[in-house]
């Protein structure tokens, strides 16, 4: 009989091995699901995970999709390390796109050197307002941030719907629910001409590195870590929980807003009824897959970006429904959290030998 017993310490080995095991199990389980759906499992997993990388423009598409995921994942790692459970980054992302994008639509002919930075800042502030509202409600009314941040996501989504079907609808858009295209000045610079590679692709890893330094090396980051691991010890040390909740929500919300603005201007080119294909929720998986370490969100963001591309590829070449992406992500998060059990526990297949002294 296998026996489960606590290790009494956190395994270093499984800290690295658990995400990899989770990934392998996810591959096996999704292969099984594909087989049940009557598709050849090997070829399907190949189409899902490998094809997007080797086809024309695959890497470009990958980094463009990964950038917003990494930005949001970094912010979430910070918040989650302090036990602040912001799950509303999807709404903060959308509000950033609305606020910053609104500036771009209002002043399409402004000086690009002023306009785009202004949009970036306003977009970030938009995300911070949405995140700050959550922080305020938690501190003022003791409202659970999981609920409030999630509900604000729907509020923001309906605000977007109202704007693109109402006041911001493009008069020349044949009645489609969408705004005018962003002007060149409002679209921001490209790192590589004639591609979608926008500044966010450079910003995302830089932000990840900066926040890693902040979290691991600074007094502020120490406060986050202590708060997340022992609330009473944080109080004993004199760290203000309210202040840290504010910072966590403003930073994670602001980064989501910035990512939203970059997505709207850099890849979408206009606002439509949907800015985020669930990026905000995928970012939660990114944060956990990266072990809540800002640097870990870089490979995690790339992998989750791949699942979006893989979903498209599987849809086109195998006729699988688009829901495959969501299923794959869900299975991955499930195994990820499950495998973390091995951090603190071990499985013994035989009874422990008794040491005789």
């Amino acid at each position: 009989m296998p026996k489960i017993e606590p290790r009494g310490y956190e395994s270093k080995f499984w800290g690295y091995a658990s995400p990899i095991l989770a990934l392998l199990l996810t591959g096996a389980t999704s292969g099984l699901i594909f087989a049940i759906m009557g598709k050849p499992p090997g070829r399907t997993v190949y189409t899902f995970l490998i094809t997007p990388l080797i086809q024309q423009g695959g890497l470009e598409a990958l980094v463009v999709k990964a950038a917003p995921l990494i930005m949001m994942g970094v912010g979430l790692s910070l918040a989650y390390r302090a036990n602040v459970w912001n799950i509303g980054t999807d709404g903060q992302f959308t509000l950033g796109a609305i606020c910053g994008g609104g500036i771009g639509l209002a002043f399409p002919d402004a000086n690009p050197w002023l306009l785009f930075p202004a949009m970036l800042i306003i977009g970030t502030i938009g995300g911070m307002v949405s995140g700050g509202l959550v922080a305020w409600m938690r501190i003022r009314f003791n409202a659970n941030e999981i609920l409030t941040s999630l509900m604000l996501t729907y509020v923001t989504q309906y605000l977007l719907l109202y704007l693109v079907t109402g006041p911001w609808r493009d008069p020349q858009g044949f009645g489609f629910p969408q705004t005018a295209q962003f002007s060149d000045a409002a679209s921001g610079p490209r790192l590589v001409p004639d591609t979608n590679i926008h500044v966010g692709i450079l910003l995302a890893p830089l932000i990840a590195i900066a926040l890693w330094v902040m979290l691991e090396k600074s007094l502020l980051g120490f406060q986050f870590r202590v708060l997340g691991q022992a609330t009473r010890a944080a109080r004993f040390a004199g760290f203000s929980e309210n202040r840290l909740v504010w910072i966590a929500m403003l930073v994670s919300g602001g980064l989501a807003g910035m990512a939203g603005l970059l997505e709207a201007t850099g890849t979408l080119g206009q606002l439509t009824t949907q800015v985020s294909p669930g990026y905000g929720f995928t970012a939660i998986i990114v944060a956990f897959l990266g072990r809540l370490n800002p640097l870990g969100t870089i490979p995690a963001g790339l992998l989750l970006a791949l699942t979006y591309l893989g979903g498209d590829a599987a849809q086109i070449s195998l006729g699988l429904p688009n829901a495959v992406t969501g299923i794959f992500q869900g299975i991955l998060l499930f195994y990820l959290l499950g495998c973390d059990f091995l951090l603190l526990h071990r499985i013994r297949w035989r009874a422990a030998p008794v040491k005789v002294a």
Partner: protein
Amino acid sequence: MPSPPPPGPLLSMTGMTKQYPGCLANDHVSLTVERNQIHALLGENGAGKSTLVKMIYGVVKPDAGKMVWEGEKVAVQNPGHAQRLGIGMVFQHFSLFEALTVAENIALGLGSAAERVGLRDRIVKVSNEYGLPLDPDRVVHDLSVGERQRIEIVRCLLQNPKLLIMDEPTSVLTPSEVQKLFVTLRRLAAEGCSILYISHKLEEVRALCSAATIMRLGRNVAQVVPANKTVKELAEIMIAADLREPTPRPGLAGETRQRLVLNKLTVRSPHHFGTDLHDVSLLIAGGEILGIAGIAGNGQNELMDALSGEILAGHPENVLIDGVPAGLMGPAERRRLRGCFVPEERNGHGAVTTMTLAENAFLSGFVLHALVRFGLIDEKRTHKVAADIIHRFDVRTTGPKAQARSLSGGNLQKFLVGREVLQDPSVLIINQPTWGVDAGAALAIHEAIMALAQEGAAVMIISQDLDEIFILADRIAVIAGGRVSDPIPTRDATIESIGRLMGGTTAQPALPVAASLTYA
């Protein structure tokens, strides 16, 4: 009794072995409890007493060993099985619902509806028989800790046990309550219920127990008759070393500046069933150690938090540190005034167990050691501070990179006391300085506290251990119901006088004094 009990001991265990990951908690331990016997199980923290007892009570399954109960070999499956065999246990930490009545709490512990018939009457009957007065209809949160313990004992006695296991029962009692408990226990033993008494209070064991099994590091080391040994001899068997006495202090240093002043400090407890503090006024001079005695749950934690700044006072003048009004300051600001604090709970309050010792040194030391440069942690100096604490306080560990939870309780406590003492505080507050700490570590901590006072710091120790207070303190005050009595010099205090104050209700001698005046 329908039939005479079979001959032989009530309980006999041999070769009991239990391996935990990385720790052999019990290594071929033997224990024999005779009928009608009060048997002591002695040992330091971590000696394996709890593991052994948990095996008897069916909470932990042994890896090897034989347990014979009333002449028959048994393997106890779970606590319910143990109860059916006639084994009852009173744990150190009670499992009572505060919002329910005494009778309701006891009913919850019973198995079937049939057992609940006439429960109230049986509670009254048993509690009166054994001198454990209890009102079945009182709500638990109104009861004192001593009364709560009675509930646990009565709960066991209702099952007519043949063996009652008691884990550190007197740590929550006043001296007079201890005497009453002993009367009850002796009576139980005489009537056929043996008692396994776990304690590290050697004086009590000598007074109460007719046999003692002493454990160290998971093994039996001796089987003695406690009355034939001195306390010092028993302690030396327990720790396997000669026990040094702490060097007595030469008395108050010349300094008499008031370094810590509490001025009508009144705070509401943030906890639901906590104790509010009322009008606490105290003066502690430099070089002085003030002891705060009291039974657990009388406002000690609130006093600690109000002093460390985790709970703010109503007014800045309520707390003065070196003359500076600090009542509205948070912990970090109070540390800047060289106030240092050691809370009672090590895990998750004084220390973050999942962090390294270096990080834990930083936790409360970054202000006075100036370990932050431009917002970043100075890791090299933090490491050095931690290494210094480990070295100067003889903390047994692999080094500053070890996780706090890898340390034993005594070693972690030495680290935490060292962390504060080495910040050269002007005011040091310690709540339960040696709670759950072995004798060697306790001595080191006591010496550090005395040395610090000698250098001119004002020290307050809050402790449930009266012996500790009498060893360390220059003056003693008692906390009861959130009020603190006027301190009296230790040389004028007796265990009895302090014990009376701890009881709370007898703390006001106003009535007898007034009565005698009218007679005069």
